[in-house]
C-alpha cells in the first residue's frame, strides 16, 4: 500500500467549551481530489488547521505523506500547501515580494522561474509589482493560492477558495486546480458550493459537529439518494395514495420522490384515475445538496463536551 497523502487517526480537538473534532479518522490517497463538506462550525477548518500545524490536536495523529505534522513538522509542512479561508495579506509588500519571501520561508532560494510560472498561471502578471493593498479581493485570493503553491507542494489544501470570488475567477481557479490534480497533486477542498464539490471531487467526507458522518466516492454518495424526483403541477387534489411520496409541496406544486424511473408511470396513472390534471411536469435526479441535507438531518447532534 502506498503512503497516504493525508492520514488522520482518531483526531480529537477539545476547546474549553466544545469538542471541535471528535475522533476523526480519514485517509486520503495520493492524487485524490477530496472534498470536505459540512455546515459552519462542523470542524472542517479545525481539521485543516491541525493538518497545517496551525493548531494542535488534543489527541490523535495526523500525517502528510507519512510525516507526522508535529514530530516531523518540517517535512510535513514542505509537502503541504494551504490556501487559508480568510483573505489575509501583508500590506508591506508587493505580489512578487510576497511570493519570494514565502518561497524563502520554505528554504528555496532560486525559485524565480517557478514564481513567474505561478504568477502567469493565476493571471497575476499585470499586478506582480503592485502592493498587496492595491489589489481587489479576487486578486488577493489569487495571491493566496500562489503563496500556497510557491514551494510546489504535492498536497494542496484549499479552504473555501471561492468564497466571495466572481464567476470568471472561480472558473479560472478550478481549471488551474484541475491541472494541478492531473499533474499529480493531491487536492483537498472545503467549499460551501456543493455543486463545485460534486463536479470536482472524486471522494467526499461530510463532517457534522466534529464527526465524520459520511465518507464515500461522490458517485456512491449520489447513488444513495438514487431515485427520481418528480415535480408535478396539478389542477385538482393529489391522489391520497401518492401522499407518502411527497417530499415538498407549495400550493399546487408537488415534488415526489420515486425509487425508480419506471415508477413515474404509476404516479401518472394514479393522477389520471383520480382526474387530477397535470399542468406541468419535470423529472430530475438528486444532487449533492439533497444528499447533504439528508445526511445532515440523519446524523446525531454534537455530543456534549
Amino acid at each position, binding site marked *: 500500500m502506498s503512503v497516504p497523502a493525508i492520514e488522520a487517526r482518531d483526531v480529537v480537538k477539545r476547546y474549553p467549551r466544545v469538542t471541535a473534532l471528535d475522533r476523526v479518522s480519514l485517509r486520503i490517497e*495520493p492524487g485524490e481530489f477530496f472534498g470536505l463538506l459540512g455546515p459552519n462550525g462542523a470542524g472542517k477548518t479545525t481539521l485543516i488547521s491541525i493538518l497545517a*500545524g*496551525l493548531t*494542535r490536536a488534543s489527541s490523535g495523529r495526523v500525517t502528510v505523506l507519512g510525516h507526522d505534522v508535529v514530530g516531523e513538522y518540517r517535512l510535513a509542512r514542505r509537502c503541504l500547501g494551504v490556501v*487559508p479561508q480568510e483573505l489575509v495579506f501583508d500590506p*508591506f*509588500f508587493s505580489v512578487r515580494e510576497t511570493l519570494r519571501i514565502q*518561497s524563502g*520561508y*520554505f528554504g528555496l532560494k532560486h525559485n524565480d522561474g517557478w514564481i513567474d510560472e505561478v504568477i502567469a498561471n493565476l493571471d497575476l502578471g499585470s499586478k506582480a509589482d503592485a502592493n498587496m493593498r492595491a489589489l481587489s479581493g479576487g486578486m488577493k485570493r489569487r495571491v493566496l493560492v500562489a503563496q500556497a503553491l510557491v514551494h510546489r507542494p504535492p498536497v494542496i489544501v484549499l479552504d473555501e477558495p471561492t468564497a466571495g470570488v466572481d464567476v470568471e475567477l472561480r472558473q479560472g481557479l478550478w481549471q488551474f486546480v484541475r491541472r494541478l490534480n492531473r499533474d499529480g497533486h493531491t487536492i483537498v477542498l472545503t467549499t460551501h458550493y456543493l455543486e463545485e464539490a460534486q463536479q470536482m471531487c472524486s471522494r467526499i467526507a461530510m463532517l457534522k459537529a466534529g464527526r465524520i458522518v459520511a465518507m464515500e466516492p461522490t458517485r456512491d454518495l449520489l447513488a444513495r439518494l438514487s431515485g427520481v424526483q418528480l415535480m408535478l403541477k396539478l389542477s385538482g387534489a393529489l391522489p391520497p395514495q401518492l401522499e407518502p411520496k411527497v417530499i415538498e409541496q407549495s400550493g399546487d406544486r408537488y415534488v415526489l420522490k420515486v425509487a425508480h424511473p419506471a415508477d413515474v408511470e404509476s404516479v401518472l396513472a394514479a393522477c389520471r384515475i383520480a382526474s387530477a390534471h397535470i399542468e406541468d411536469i419535470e423529472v430530475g435526479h438528486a444532487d449533492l445538496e439533497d444528499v447533504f441535507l439528508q445526511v445532515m438531518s440523519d446524523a446525531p447532534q454534537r455530543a456534549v463536551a
Partner: protein
Amino acid sequence: MNQIEHNALAQAVRLDALPARAQLASSWVGFRTLLYKEVLRFWKVAFQTIAAPVLTGVLYLLVFGHVLDQRVEAFPGVRYSAFLVPGLVMMSLLQNAFANSSSSLIQSKIMGNLVFVLLPPLSHLEFFAAYALSSVLRAFVVGIGVFAVTGLIALPPVNAPVWVLVFGLLGAAMLGVLGIIAGIVSDKFDQLAAFQNFIIMPATFLSGVFYSVHSLTPFWRTLSRLNPFFYMIDGFRYGFFGQSDVDPWQSLAVVTASLLLTAAIAIRMLASGYKLRG
C-alpha cells in the same frame, strides 16, 4: 493521474530532505528570509520607525539640556547634556527594540497574516532569532541615529567602546525578546499599549536615564536597583564616562541573567505554540 509518478514525487520530498546538510541549508534560508522580511518591514516605514524616535531623542536633549545644564552635575566634571546623551541613546534603543518585535507580531496577528510564517517549516528557534535579531538591528539604527545627532550638541567621551557595544547589544536583545513576549500575549493593540505604557515606559524612565541614582533618596535608590533597566543604562554609561553607579561587571551579570530569563520564557512560549498555534 499516475500513482507511480506521485509516489516518486512523495519519495523525492523524503529523499531530498534527508541529508542533514541540505536540511540545515534550507532552514538557514528560511531563517534568513524571515529576518530579511522583518528588517524590510521596518525599513519600508523608516520615517516612522527610525526618523521619529531619533527626533524624539533630540527633543529630550534640547529641553532637558537647556533646563538643567547650568544646575545639575550628575557626574563630577561632566556637563549634564553630555551625561544625558548615553542615557537617551540607550532609552531609544530599548524602546525601539521592544516596539519592533511587539508591533510586528500584533499587526500580523490582527491582520491574520501571521499564518504565512506559521505554515512554513520554520522552527521556533528560527522564529525567535529572526524577530529578536531584527529588533536589535532596528534598535542599533535608531541608537546610532540618536547618538549621531545628539552628539553634535553635546558629545560625551567614549572611554570603553566594548562596554558600550556589549550593553547596547544585550539591552536591545532583551527588549526585543520582551517585545516578542508582549506580542504573543496581547490580542489587541490596547493590550500591547498597556504593556508599553505601564511597564516599558516607567521602567526606562526610572532607570536613571535622566539622573544618577546617587542623587536619589535611599528608598528610591534601593528600588532602582531592582530594575534591570537601571543596570543596562548604568553599564552603557560606564562605557562612555568610565564611571558608573554600580560596578559594570555586576551590571553585566544582571543584564545577562535578565536576557537569559526572558529568552527562556519567549522560546518556551514559541515552542509550545502558546496563543499562536491554538
